[in-house]
């Protein structure tokens, strides 16, 4: 039996007056996954997350979390959802300890032991007011206040933005250590870190989800290819749609195949260029895939 996804959007559309922000977005975040939603600035990541958290209303389509329409999320639903964002406005007059103590009665699953452990792990000063904390410390406090009640779904919007690598690493390690039973959706530009722990990835561009799949599958199908010819290279027209735009330099053609399969790709290259001398296929880190997609998007514009 197919399990219900933790998060799902169907034809999700959002317009701000006449400016489209999300366009018919279909997203599925499987239960138990760590889903990284990536994309360039202005792609619609934050808008999507805000709709999921019922902070914004969709213009069309629907969004659901734990099977509930996001517009109808109740306090009982929010007791199972943890949300933190780089732009979250915390009650700055509260001390760290008072903040956690204030939130505790809202959550039936609040775990004092875990809260204490998180404070120790993050080295958060209990008696310090939130307004006196650095950006990184505030994010740690926000994350501690989320992880302390064992949420079933954790949604993080750019949680690592503007933080130094040490703090980022600390946050990621703590998150991974406390989200074994949870589904995590996070948006980020920190692709290198995403690669180390995300199980699924979605690429959002201009409000449309370009792809959404398991990270291993993505890494398997994206390859950067260098094709060496025995004469100056030309770019054939029409260019295959599943190959990102190519660059030709001398006898070498370089491009990214988004549907790489060794035998099929080799055969297609030979059919386009009969005079191929060698083909080199390199696995791509997530950052390179992201940059290649972003560049191809801009060229397409």
């Amino acid at each position, binding site marked *: 039996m197919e399990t219900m996804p933790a998060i799902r959007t169907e034809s999700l559309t959002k317009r701000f007056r006449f400016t489209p922000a999300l366009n018919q977005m279909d997203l599925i975040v499987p239960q138990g996954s760590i889903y990284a939603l990536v994309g360039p600035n202005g792609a619609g990541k934050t808008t999507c997350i805000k709709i999921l958290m019922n902070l914004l209303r969709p213009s069309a389509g629907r969004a659901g979390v734990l099977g509930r329409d996001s517009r109808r999320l109740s306090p009982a639903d*929010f007791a199972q959802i943890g*949300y933190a964002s780089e*732009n*979250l*406005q915390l009650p700055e007059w509260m001390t760290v300890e008072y903040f956690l103590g*204030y939130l505790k009665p*809202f*959550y039936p699953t609040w775990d004092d032991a875990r809260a204490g452990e998180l404070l120790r792990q993050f080295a958060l000063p209990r008696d310090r007011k939130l307004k006196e904390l650095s950006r990184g410390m505030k994010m740690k406090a926000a994350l501690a206040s989320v992880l302390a009640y064992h949420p079933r779904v954790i949604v993080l919007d750019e949680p690592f933005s503007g933080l130094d690598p040490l703090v980022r690493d600390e946050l990621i390690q703590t998150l991974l250590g406390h989200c074994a039973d949870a589904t995590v959706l996070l948006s980020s530009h920190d692709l290198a870190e995403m690669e180390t722990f995300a199980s699924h990835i979605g690429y959002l561009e201009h409000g449309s989800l370009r792809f959404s799949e398991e990270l291993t599958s993505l890494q398997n199908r994206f390859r950067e290819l260098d094709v060496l010819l025995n004469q100056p290279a030309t770019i054939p027209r029409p260019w295959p749609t599943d190959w990102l735009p190519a660059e030709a330099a001398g006898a070498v053609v370089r491009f990214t195949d988004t549907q790489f399969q060794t035998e099929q790709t080799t055969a297609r290259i030979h059919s386009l260029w009969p005079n191929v001398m060698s083909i080199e296929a390199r696995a791509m880190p997530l950052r390179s895939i992201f940059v290649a997609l972003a560049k191809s998007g801009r060229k397409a514009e």
Partner: protein
Amino acid sequence: MLQTLHIFSKDVRSLRYEIGVTLAVAATFVFFQVTDSRFRDLGTPLLLVIAGWLLTVRVVHEEPLPGTRQFWLTRPYSRASLLAAKILFLLAFIVLPKTIADLAITLHAGFSFSDLLPGLLCSQVLLFTLFAIPIAAIAAVTTNLAQAIVASLPLMFMLAISGGSALGPLDWVRHAAMALALAAAALSVVVFAYGTRRTTLARLLAGVLWIAAVVIGVGLNGSLGSAVESRVLPVHLDDVSRVGMDFGFTGTATLMSGFNAQIRLPIRFAGLPVEKATSVEMLPRIIATNLRIRASDGTLWPPENGFLTGTGTNDSEPALDFNVPANYYAKLKAGPASLRATLYVTLYGNRKTFSIDSRRVIIPGVGACSFQPMSQNVTRPAIICLNLFRSPRLLLLNNQELSGQQPSFFYQLSHSPFPAELGIQPSEMTVAMGLQPSAQLPLEIITLEPLAHFQRQVSFTNLKLDQLKEEVFPMSR
């Protein structure tokens, strides 16, 4: 309920300094009121309003409704509990301190608990629905103090237009309608904003309802007010067309420094329905609006597109008072003039007599009245009355005044049937009745209750204003 108390206690902790300031201002307010300080009317009532405004806005802004970045939006807050927590806070730190302050002031003024209870309760309901809730509604659609200040300006405009007492004791109808509209609008906005958290729509709703309240305030004309008044008062007149009105010939024209002439035309009534009254006495008082006069050469005063309003009298003898320029008065005297106006006539009766000696006397429907003798600062003896949560409902006269010898200095009257009006000071001086220097204690004063009311469009012709007794102000003695 637990969540409501939890949020409430968080708000108390967060706003403990603001609460402290508000309570301190309330205590100072009470101190100045009960010590009868000369600062009682100056700073503290305004400070109390500002402190209450600030505390209301701050507590609502603890969890701002507009926006998408507040931490509480994605926490398991029940918005009903949140609203209940805010209402509990307003009751605890706006209404309760004001209740205690009002109680202290009015008990100190000599009113008994049973005298003041209806007014006290009604006053706190008005404070909550017409002060706290409208400000909470403003705060619910704003995110910071600057926005709240700007959004409060229309509310102040509404307060400004609610003033201007053209119809005197009848103005309560317009005030009540505006208050009802404002309370309904504010409650709707608060419930909508907390229920849906749709800020744009809530702001739109607030704007539309505010305009509706203003339209009611501006548009509610005297005829409607008069119709309500005539139904609310205990005696309903079946056929007022039988009541005759005519000008007497004992009128005066006071020439004011050569620029203006203040004309007083006493009105004689005939056929008043005394037999239908609960009292044999039906003392008429008038207020006139839309007054216009035409001289024998056809010229009008006021000129085209202008009407005199608010003319009238509170004195014992019903009369029409109005001012005209001195040169126009000369035209009026040159030949027969005509006059038309809308008259609002209230008939008073049920005479009761009270004796005032050196002690303060509680007069139901008026307040706590006492005799103020002449002193270094007081050039003339007077009867001073402190009201209780509202302007006096009863007409207060002394025997001398009934014989037309002494006018009141100051008398604010309202026929409102409610035990309180929206106000800051629970008890303030609303009657100051001047007396002859030779006045001796005990004094006998009389109260008259409004019993019936009617409105009449009148038109008088062939007025011979050259027969008015002329006086010059300042009068030479």
